[in-house]
């Protein structure tokens, strides 16, 4: 599992991110611009809340009947002459893909942007094959690859942390001698990548949605590289998280509309494609078509309170409204899945030992939940993660380290602490009531029973834990427990 993007401790990453002023400005600018575009696109559609109801219903339904839909989809892919491989782990997926690459004697591989292939570290595995080259063809992913495989910082805008001068330097290494003008640089990338494309023998794509009743895959993009990846090479391998499925073209169409509006404020992105293996009479498109369906920890969410995280359509809107993401950017999270969705998903996929600190990197302001097009109760799930960790602590004291690390996140970083306090306390304090301090509630300072409108809807059924007030002594509580923990450790 390689969703980690850094070996450094969380607070070190936060500190580094805080010092990256260009990144902070870029994220703030992007968040503000996307806010306007997203809001306008949703308003123009009208009835946005009812569209969210529909989006949520589609996603909940397919997760509920996931094995049935995957079975139907794989039957239909095979009817069309394609192949489906079910991979429980990243290793199984990578081995299968390497096997196909070897069988096909693939030497030039083109890839279009896919988070799930980043998750399984596919690029490096394929590059370990003899005489094999590989090109990320999405402009942002191409820049990251050529910049020594720098890590993405956003699930929709992976190079948000880079400025034009940095990109110009990356391109200079490839023979570019033009200015730092984005258009001129994009033209260079077009020519450079086009030459590579025309020689490519294997194409690898992700999948926004798999269409169960006809075996097609749906990709939603803006640049056109994904469509070239599906047109030119003779072999295509699609890699998809097992939850990325819809019943039919109709539901794909609904979600494409919601995804485009939520991700980039467009009614539809430039290219929404529905595709499968070449049929008789056609001359381009893959004659050999493989779909790899990946679990890799996703099933940890099934049957638990975290199941709604599988509804995610990766629009990135929750990142674009998050005050914490605004300050620490993608790299601060240390996961390829950053922001609120990353803080919920990363511990599900890869455990609390590695990502137990992320659920604490939140102000619980509920802006993420409010914007999510498929109504994932993100901040509620963050609280749930904290609760699960507390329960684990009760059962298993060795878990102390993980919990303390996480609790430290909320208190040891001045910026996170400030956002948490200001964000969550604005308007919430008058609604809260005092409760006796107990370890079950990590923030031992009261529960909210009626939330302000931002969080309305879900506090009717569940209390929201409140963060400490400025004047309260959560830091003392934390310090005391840290001391106990250290004393405990010294006795081991």
């Amino acid at each position, binding site marked *: 599992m390689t969703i980690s993007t850094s070996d450094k401790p969380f607070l070190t990453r936060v500190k580094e991110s805080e010092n990256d002023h260009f990144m902070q400005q870029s994220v703030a600018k992007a968040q503000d611009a996307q806010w306007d575009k997203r809001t306008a696109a949703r308003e123009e559609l009208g009835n946005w809340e009812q569209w969210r109801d529909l989006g949520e219903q589609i996603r909940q339904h397919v997760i509920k009947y996931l094995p049935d839909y995957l079975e139907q989809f794989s039957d239909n892919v095979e009817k069309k002459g394609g192949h489906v491989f079910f991979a429980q782990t990243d290793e199984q997926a990578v081995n299968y893909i390497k096997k196909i690459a070897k069988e096909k004697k693939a030497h030039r591989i083109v890839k279009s942007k896919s988070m799930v292939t980043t998750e399984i570290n596919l690029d490096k595995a394929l590059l370990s094959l003899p005489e094999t080259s590989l090109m990320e063809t999405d402009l942002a992913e191409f820049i990251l690859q050529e910049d020594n495989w720098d890590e993405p910082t956003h699930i929709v805008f992976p190079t948000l942390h880079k400025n034009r001068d940095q990109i110009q330097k990356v391109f200079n290494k490839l023979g570019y001698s033009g200015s730092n003008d984005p258009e001129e640089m994009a033209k260079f990338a077009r020519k450079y990548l086009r030459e590579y494309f025309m020689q490519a023998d294997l194409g690898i794509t992700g999948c926004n949605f798999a269409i169960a009743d006809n075996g097609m895959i749906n990709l939603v993009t803006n640049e056109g590289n994904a469509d070239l990846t599906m047109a030119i090479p003779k072999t295509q391998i699609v890699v998809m998280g097992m939850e990325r499925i819809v019943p039919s073209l109709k539901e794909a169409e609904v979600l494409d509309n919601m995804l485009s509006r939520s991700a980039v404020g467009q009614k539809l992105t430039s290219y929404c494609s529905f595709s499968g293996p070449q049929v008789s009479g056609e001359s*381009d498109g893959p004659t050999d078509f493989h779909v790899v369906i990946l679990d890799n920890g996703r099933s940890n969410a099934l049957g638990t309170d975290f199941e709604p995280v599988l509804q995610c359509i990766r629009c990135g809107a929750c990142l674009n409204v998050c005050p914490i993401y605004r300050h620490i950017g993608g790299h601060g999270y240390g996961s390829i899945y950053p922001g609120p969705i990353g803080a919920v998903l990363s511990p599900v996929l890869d455990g609390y030992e590695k990502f137990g600190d992320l659920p604490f990197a939140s102000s619980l302001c509920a802006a993420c939940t409010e914007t999510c097009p498929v109504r994932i109760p993100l901040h509620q799930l963050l609280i749930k993660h904290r609760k699960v960790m507390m329960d684990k602590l009760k059962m298993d004291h060795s878990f102390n380290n993980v919990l303390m690390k996480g609790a430290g996140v909320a208190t040891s970083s001045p910026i996170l602490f400030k956002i948490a306090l200001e964000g969550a306390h604005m308007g919430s304090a008058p609604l809260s009531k005092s409760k006796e301090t107990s370890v079950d509630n990590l923030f031992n300072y009261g529960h909210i029973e009626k939330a302000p409108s931002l969080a309305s809807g879900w506090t009717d059924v569940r209390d929201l834990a409140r963060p400490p007030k400025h004047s309260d002594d959560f830091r003392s509580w934390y310090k005391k427990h840290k001391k106990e923990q250290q004393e405990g450790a010294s006795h081991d």
Partner: protein
Amino acid sequence: MTNSNREVFLDKIATKAGRTRHQLKNHPFVPINDLPESTLAGKSQDELLELAQKNSEAVHVTFEKTNRISLSTLLNDFLSAKDINNLILPTCDKWAAFGLSDWENKLADSAEFWTPESSRTENLAKVNAADGAIGFADYLLAESGTITVATTPGQGRGFHFLPTHYLSIIPKSHILSRSRQAMHKYEAAIASGKLTTSNINFITGPSNSGDIEMVLVVGVHGPLDMTYVVVEDL
């Protein structure tokens, strides 16, 4: 057998979810509302045309309206305005329906055609060398300024992505309100056997990217510009 690992995988996720497999047939998806159908419903073809123009121009498309008589002149103007020297055209039976048989015949020697007889390499080399493409769309979606095209033996996938400039011809009667209506058409055509295709593209304006400092750059991998020509046929 590619399916050998499927049952283990599906059984495992069913167990983890605590739900029995094969329940779907008794619980098919029934949408909670009819927004995909009712949004923009009941508009006349003239209203849809107006909306399509507005929304296409909003995504940087050059939008033209014409009739069968003026169409060939408009296409010639496009070729000279874009200074197109290597034109690619599809192989299809639509030329006559748009009054373009003579126009197409005149270009037979100078233009390249995507042909069912050519190999993958030959067709892709032709479109890659083309600085202009003129093709036919199946539908135009008014809400988003989107053309839709299903891949056919005479108009392959690469046809829409590799040329530098791109023009698409759409009959006015094929303007639909939204993507939902297009999906109904495609599902029906596939189910009845009228359409056999491996690929359906919904294309909304030219290729673009905001990957460098969020500055909108048009024409990254696909065509640098798009022209839609709606032809009066009603």
